[in-house]
């Protein structure tokens, strides 16, 4: 199963299938696909040991475009299918591809339990804050006021934060990335995949047809840098084109402040330093975002603890190991008697 069939330095295209990609022009899924292929190339695991499991949605078509094994399952159940697959064969490198509807609306429960159980899956949640495939309805991440075919008057439902949810579920690796940032995306994916245990990456993804520009506040040339907080372990939580802003914590009130750094503003030392191992800080970062704060991107939380013991099957071995005799003994393990 581990025959080194993969080139030592594979090109991302090595992981591309021959299928025509069928997303809309301008869809953020293209960029993410590219990022994934780069991450796969970087990790250089054999194609045959890699499986992409997806649910249903535009994003969930991704497995067709990769030259690995793939299973395009049913709406919301990819984490559950992948859990069985991983338990059955822990040697496989399993990625779960899901959308904000697939993974957080219908599939929220399986997501919760995959994270809680800390199954070693690489979970990618494509969040375009809308249902793409079914033509633009509200999703659980759609912002208040979103107009859609099911909310023609504007949504009146509070959205859930994918990152906050993942932390609440006990996720040990939680990150957020932006579709178009090819300089950062593959690295985050590689880290997620290398993390032993469940890793959860929220991918902010533009749906050019039903929710175009949902993340332009982040990608905007002008305003973007002030809205993006790229967090990196050990580095201060600074943002802005020249890092001119930063986050400070008031220890008494336990409240965050967005402050200007430098002369006239606050001193560098007062700025919080990112510690991706700190669940409390992660929880804090999970609650912030526009309009009062920038949106944290990068690895928000990574629990370095040795992976909690978690359900892992004994089924990895290709051949069965019990003998007929052992099973005969199993049948005879209780209350036997001899009749003559």
């Amino acid at each position, binding site marked *: 199963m581990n025959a080194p069939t993969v080139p030592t330095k594979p090109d991302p295209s090595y992981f591309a299938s021959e299928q025509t990609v069928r997303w809309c022009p301008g869809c953020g899924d293209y960029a993410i696909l590219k990022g994934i292929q780069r991450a796969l190339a970087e990790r250089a695991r054999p194609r045959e040991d890699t499986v992409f499991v997806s649910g249903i949605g535009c994003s969930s078509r991704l497995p067709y475009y990769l030259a690995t094994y793939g299973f395009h399952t*049913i709406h919301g159940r990819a984490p559950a299918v992948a859990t069985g697959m991983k338990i059955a064969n822990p040697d*496989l490198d399993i990625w779960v591809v899901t959308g904000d509807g697939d993974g957080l609306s219908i599939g929220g429960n399986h997501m919760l339990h995959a994270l809680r159980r800390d199954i070693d899956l690489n979970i990618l949640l494509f969040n375009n804050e809308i249902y793409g495939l079914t033509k633009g309805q509200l999703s659980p991440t759609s912002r208040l006021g979103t107009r859609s075919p099911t909310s023609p008057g504007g949504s009146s439902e509070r959205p859930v934060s994918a990152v906050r949810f993942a932390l609440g579920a006990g996720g040990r690796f939680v990150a957020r990335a932006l579709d178009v940032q090819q300089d950062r995306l593959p690295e985050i994916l590689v880290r997620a995949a290398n993390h032993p245990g469940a890793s959860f990456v929220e991918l902010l993804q533009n749906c050019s047809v039903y929710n175009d520009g949902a993340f332009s506040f982040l990608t905007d040339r002008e305003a973007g840098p002030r809205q993006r907080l790229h967090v990196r372990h050990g580095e201060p939580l600074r943002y802005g084109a020249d890092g001119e802003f930063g986050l400070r914590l008031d220890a008494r009130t336990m409240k965050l402040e967005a402050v200007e750094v430098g002369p006239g503003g606050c001193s560098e030392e007062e700025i919080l330093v990112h510690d991706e191992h700190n669940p409390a800080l992660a929880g804090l970062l999970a609650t912030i975002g526009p309009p009062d704060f920038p949106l944290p991107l990068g690895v928000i939380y990574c629990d370095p603890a040795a992976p909690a013991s978690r359900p892992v099957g004994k089924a990895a071995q290709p051949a069965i190991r019990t003998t007929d005799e052992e099973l005969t003994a199993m049948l005879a393990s209780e209350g036997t008697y001899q009749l003559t």
Partner: protein
Amino acid sequence: MGSESGGVRERTRVAVGVVRFAGDSGDGIQLMGSRFTQAAAERGYDLATVPDYPAEIRAPSGTTFGVSSFQIRFGGDAIRNPGDLADTLVAMNPAALKVHLDGVREGGTVILNTGSFNEKNLKRAGLESDPREDGTLKGYRLVALDIGKQTLDAVSGLGLSRKNAARCRNMYALGLVLWMYGAGIEPARAWLEERFGAGTPVGRANLRALEAGHAFGETAELAAGAPVYDIHPAELTPGLYRTITGGEALAFGLVVGAHKVGRPLFFGSYPITPASPVLHRLAALRDNPDVTVFQAEDEIAAISSCIGASYAGCLSGTSTSGPGMALKTEALSLACAAELPLVVIDCQRSGPSTGLPTKSEQTDLMYAVWGRPGEAPLPILAPKSPSDCFDTVVEATRIAVRFMTPVIVLADGYLVNASEPWLLPNVADIAAVPAKLHTDPEGFQPFMRDEALARPWAIPGTPGLEHRIGGLERDADTGEVSYDPENHQRMSDLRAEKVARVADALPAQKVEVGPPSGKLAVISWGSTYGVVREAVEELRTEGEEVSQIHLRALHPLPRGLGELLAGFDRVVVAELNSGHLRALLRAEFLVDVEGLNQINGMPFLVRDVKAGIRGRLM
């Protein structure tokens, strides 16, 4: 009943005994039942048992809804069901008497624990007067004794608390009943020693109570009118036996079935009454390196995890009952579309919805056949007895792998909890039909088919076979997603034809009892087998021209069944639902199949089946 035991009284020779134990959960009823069963089994009787639990975990003591019971039928004849009516009822309290007296045959014996017949308990049982005095027990032979007090006397001096001492009363009652049926206490003694340790106070107290109960009969303290029996052992094939419940047999069937197709077993399930024993039994096999058990967050995740594990190369199984089957509907359809092997065990219970969780029915048959939107056919088998659960599941695993298909096994709550003696098979004697994993990339396509129309099992980790499957329709030639109308027709036909061909891999239908043509055939399926068989045999003894046909495969229907049915003037399906198999047979064979139906959560009684058939023979 390892050792014969005499006693002074003349024993009545009978062929079969039926004993029912009933009382509060705290009375240790199930233990009494299982120990009596073991004694009877070791004495060489054929037997059938069935427990009946209250729906509550620990219902308030003394209430009718808190009554727990256990019935055993044993003897020298082939015993295929636990019997309609008991010869002997052990009623540990008034509520037990109230609930179960109806289940005792006329002239039967009622052993009453008089110590529990106080005002409080009578009231809790909702009795206005004392049944010992108001004529309720007329027509029964009464053995009234204060079991509680006798037990306390017997175990006094061992330093047990009153509460713990009183707990031994089930052993006292057991000893007495063993004696009544001419059996010794050896097996129970051995078990007590193993369970509590030889010299522990609790172990010794239980043993003393057991002995005291036995002695109570033996020393002729027993009321003169009380009957004592002598029952001849059965002529069972010599060999190593155990008693087995359907729940255990279903679990073992999966383990051995997976082993025989040469794949590790992945079992993903979610607890639910009455299916949980299968999950528990498998979970207990944690040292078996080929068995992985996963308790999922719900039934959807359970079957989804199975689908993932099957894709990864395991033989997967899941078990549940009605509400859980409902939740598995969508993913089961995915398993049909993806054509992956999977065994789904449905332990049917009374519906609709939560229904009567601890009661048994056969009301999921049509759901199993038709209960998936779209065309998603799959094979369905039903076991007929506790031990047949093993064989049926082994067969199901073979079909699942041979045809790359999910298979439903329709057990039921009755079967899961019932038990019978099982001549232990030697696993080496069971035919191995190893799955062929596909490994050759040459010309590979995920929906190419072999002569059984099965697609290849190509698991991740195999170089060169990287492919993508899923719930969207696939091109029959390339395996890629296809929206082509002709292809969809072709694939629909292929999926149907594949399942239809399963019938070729199974034995042609035969009659079970009686001639293969004639006046009337009674058709049974699943757990009604034993009752119907006994009814038919009795009717035949009584001179009636009637045959039994028993179906193990419900879909596809067995080869030869149509011809068989055509040979009978009348055909009656006896089933515990509104007429599911009846409708299937009528639609398939255009035969005016009649129905003998019951939906009350209980197994058929032999007398009801006999009456139903007799009514149609006139």
